[in-house]
């Protein structure tokens, strides 16, 4: 690729991110000026919408990335080593995006920090998620600093801690939904496991994109051996997720369990069917599984393509899970039902905030990789 073509691509890339960031800032300004009620399409019956699902997408991806960053440091998988620093940087910025969305979603983010410290409720899974985030952020930053400053002897012990807190983050995020007895689609021990596996899947997808597109926009710097290793890992993680999905469907349909059955039907043949079958199943599972497990198709390019598809698929998966879990009315007599289900579609402000957070993550990542210290060891 010529230098001028690279420059044009880079300009386009940063222009796109600047546009996304501007959309997010507009969304934030609108929300602050007009309030959540006017800015968001969530209701009393469906209080959690795309902001919560996107926050979960980014946070779970971050925790998964920290696990992948330590495949080399802890498990000695040398083929993952060239991706380790990149995974750490991406974990930091996906976490930043998750927190940016959370700050928009929560009515009082500062009050949250204050009262989580002075009036915590240990019975609440949210408090434990907060504790996990604190530890997670500390370990992530510690490991990134150790890596950047060449303190290699710290990478393994910090890596072991990183694995523990990442699994804790993923499973606690699942537990937030899993303890909600009022929502039959979510309730039960399935959610923590589901979040752990889907978090790994989404992080693998993001890392394969980061590995393919190199350390700078428009300049290829990929490491094919690492991409192949990532592809094998992704294939296994996706297979595990497919097994979970099958049993999630069977559990939701078999014997028509009240509440869960209607929510599952909302996914399979209701208002979320396109999301479910096209994005979650076809793009998110079937096609990438074929690309990654089918030997004739497996190549660094197919790993990257699978990464694009899985990123879209898991994003839709998070949305479907959050929305479908609340579409079945919890009490009789709810108004505004369509075929017995409550309705939700995100507002333009909610979408703008998600676009803004995603752009923030990508912009910070792109800028960070321009630093020689960060980019130096990448690939």
């Amino acid at each position, binding site marked *: 690729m010529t230098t001028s073509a690279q420059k044009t691509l880079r300009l386009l890339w940063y222009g796109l991110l600047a546009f996304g960031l501007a959309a997010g800032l507009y969304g934030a300004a609108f929300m602050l000026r007009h*309030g*959540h*009620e006017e800015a968001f399409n*969530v*209701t*009393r*019956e469906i*209080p*959690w919408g795309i902001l919560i699902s996107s926050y979960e997408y980014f946070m779970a991806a971050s925790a998964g990335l920290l696990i992948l960053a330590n495949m080399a440091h802890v498990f000695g998988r040398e083929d993952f080593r060239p991706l380790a620093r990149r995974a750490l940087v991406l974990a930091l910025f996906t976490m930043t995006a998750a927190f940016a969305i959370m700050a928009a*979603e*929560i*009515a*009082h*983010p500062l*009050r*949250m920090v204050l*009262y*989580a410290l002075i*009036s*915590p*409720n240990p*019975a*609440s*899974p*949210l*408090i434990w998620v*907060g504790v996990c985030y604190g530890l997670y952020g500390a370990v992530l930053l510690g490991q990134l600093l150790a890596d950047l400053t060449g303190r290699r002897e710290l990478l393994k012990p910090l890596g072991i801690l990183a694995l523990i807190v990442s699994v804790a983050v993923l499973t606690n995020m699942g537990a*937030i939904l899993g*303890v*909600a*007895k*009022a*929502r039959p689609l979510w309730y039960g021990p399935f959610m923590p496991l589901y979040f752990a596996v889907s978090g790994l899947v989404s992080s693998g997808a993001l890392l394969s994109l980061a590995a393919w597109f190199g350390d700078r926009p428009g300049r290829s710097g990929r490491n094919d051996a690492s991409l192949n290793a990532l592809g094998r890992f992704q294939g296994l993680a996706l297979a595990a997720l497919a097994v979970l999905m099958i049993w999630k469907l069977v559990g939701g349909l078999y014997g028509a369990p009240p509440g869960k059955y209607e929510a599952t039907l909302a996914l399979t043949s209701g208002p979320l069917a396109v999301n479910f079958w096209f994005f979650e199943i076809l793009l998110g599972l079937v096609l990438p599984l074929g690309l990654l497990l089918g030997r004739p198709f497996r190549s660094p390019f197919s790993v990257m393509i699978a990464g694009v598809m899985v990123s879209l698929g898991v994003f839709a998966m998070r949305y479907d899970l959050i929305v479908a879990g*609340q579409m079945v*009315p*919890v*009490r*009789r*007599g*709810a108004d505004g039902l369509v075929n017995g289900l409550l309705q939700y579609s995100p507002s333009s402000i909610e979408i703008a905030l998600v676009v803004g957070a995603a752009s923030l993550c990508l912009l910070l990542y792109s800028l960070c990789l321009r630093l020689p210290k960060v980019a130096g060891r990448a690939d």
Partner: protein
Amino acid sequence: MKNKRYAMVLDTRRCIDCKACTVACKAENHVPLGRDNYRNWVTQEELRGSYPRLGQSFTPGQCMHCGNSPCDHICPTRATGVNPDGIVTVDYDKCIGCKYCMTACPYNARYFNEEKGAVDKCTFCAHRIYGDGRSPACAETCPTKVRVFGDLNDPDSEVSRLLASRPYRVEQPDKGTKPFLFYLM
């Protein structure tokens, strides 16, 4: 002396769906206007029978002041609390607006009050009970006396006597929330 345990007993056969309870609640508790903003409600049950022999019942509802409250368990900052007398409360200053309690409540009894900047719900009009001992506004205003409010730990209270003399049910007992709104059958 034993703690009070407040409860409400409802005789839904008396309900005429006039919604005076809803209006009284809104006025008493300054509930903002808007589709989502209400502390109590009247559910119109499905029509029974066929024309011309039709019947319909109405079921008023509100926060069930559960003995095993999911909202209390999951609130991360203890903004939701349960008083010794069983009234489930919200401390607006502690509420962070995460809406977790709204997803966890199986009765959809909570809403986000934009004016207060916090989640809001029925408190049995605690300010009236603790102030001058008056009943909740919904119970006081009901023209057909559907709602009876009182102390279940007092065997001579009207709520105790009603529950001793008539069969009753609670909403969604399978959720294990131990609601303290009792519906006479």
